């Protein structure tokens, strides 16, 4: 399989990465080279093999339903790029078109 420039741009949007045109070009070459190698996996007969779900068999890991302290609001916010009134501040995502 081989990625077109358009597909690279589509994947970059899915990944939320604003790439420059130069980056799109070099990533297209890199990804196609890597995918070319990855495709050797098709040599394996995997028809009847179940996929690995977990490396070690562990089932139904549960703990007691006890209340334990979590991060305080102060600690949770200490790395916030912007904050206001004890909450993370983000660009406005609702409201009208008047940029109010």
């Amino acid at each position: 399989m081989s990625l077109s420039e358009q597909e690279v741009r589509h994947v970059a949007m899915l990944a939320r990465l604003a790439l420059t045109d130069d980056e799109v070009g070099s990533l297209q070459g890199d990804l196609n080279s890597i995918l070319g190698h990855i495709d050797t996996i098709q040599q394996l007969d995997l028809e009847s093999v179940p996929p690995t779900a977990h490396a070690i068999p562990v089932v139904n890991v549960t703990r007691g339903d006890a209340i334990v302290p979590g991060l305080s609001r102060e600690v949770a916010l200490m790395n916030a790029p912007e904050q206001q009134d004890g909450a993370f501040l983000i660009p406005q995502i609702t409201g009208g078109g008047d940029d109010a």
Partner: protein
Amino acid sequence: MSHLDLSAHRAADISDGIARKEFTAREVAESALARIEALDGDVHSLNQVTPDIAYAAADRIDALVSAGGELPPMAGVPAAFKDNMNLIGTRTTCSSRILANYESAYDCTAVARLINAGVLPLGKCNMDEFAFGSSGETSATGPAKNPWDLGRIPGGSSAGSAAAVAAGLAMVTLGSDTGGSIRQPGAMTGTVALKPTYGRVSRYGCVAFASSLDQIGPFSLTVEDNARVLEAICGKDSMDATSVDRPAEDFVAASRRGVTGMRIAIVRDMLDMEGVTPEVRDSVLAAAARFESMGATIGEVDLPTSQHGISAYYIIAPAEASSNLARFDGIRYGHRAENPVDTLDLYMRTRAEGFGTEAKRRIMLGTYALSAGYYDAYYGQAQKARTLIAREFTTAFEDYDVLLMPTSPQVAWKFGAKSDPLSMYLSDIFTIPVNLAGNCGINVPCGFAEEDGAKLPIGLQIIGDYFAEAKVFAAAGALERDLALDLRSPALSVPVA
């Protein structure tokens, strides 16, 4: 004042010396920090040095000595942690611009357990950005250097964790291993480096790369010190549901017990692969002969499916990484792009500005592999291949206690020598299958190669079954005693007055 020569000591010497009042933990901290001050400008193994935390830990030990209390098992041992592990009072940057100012909000369980065992935390170790790399060169703070030759890579991604031990800056360090990131830098720097069985050590507080593969483990100069660290950090943690409820074993005793009667196999088809240098191949075969002379029986196995490990890994690991790294969006922590017009613009530019080239490459590869229409062809196939690789190991362990293969096909290369991403990826061919299967493996130095006048360590990888760390330590310890290599790197040999 003159400083203690820490390079001549092992962890047990430090703890015993403090207990016998030959020196204080504070003197150990001062000596270790003086070495860092003198040498780490060149080696760049640490992103952050933490004298306040080291002295506070030393003072707790010295107070215990004064009070006549019982000392913890690794009292006063100088230690450092890969910079993807949280420790309150330090930044946890993952060597990435996007986390350059991130302050740890809580403690990583493995780090906290090692500190509870008495170590002195000296700092946070340089690494490939988000652990994406095999050379240390993707670090946004600049690469760590190999103490055996500063013009060469120390391996990666736990580049600084390996370099700090090899340069005698820390006696033990923690790294993380997703596809070889502990064992391979161990091979490059002549250090003992263990990837424990998946689930043996909690990953809580370690920034996730590929959650079905990641495991924390120790670096040290000796097998016994490595075993000591594993005893301290292993075991169930309610904060990591993948950690397994298995009690610590006496790994230190295991490291001393020898290989008499052990069944050991050379992985023949991997050893014979193209790209393995003659020096590496010969050293591995010589190590096998030493095991035989020490009373082990030596056989051979092939692991034909494991040769496809790289293909499976470079689907699974980037896929999981692209998912794990979705959290770095500029909202709750980390870098945020200026003057965003809306949230989409904020995400897109924050991530473009914050991530380096290799991180973007992995995110793109993983996002593509998981995108609509491609999931079955890539991720689904890779998870099936993983089952075959695990079965292949399980079959081999029906007949053998441990398996031998090189840790890396070659010794440490020069900076810039692998500029093509695929050639860098292929260098992890011998370590990746163990992560995919989930069992354990250790690097132990087994010889040296000469390249352009530099003496460079060669690493043997000893692979064990699930939770067979005791056998792995037994074999590694026996080889270490038998070979008695001089593992003092040029940087480690530098005395600090």
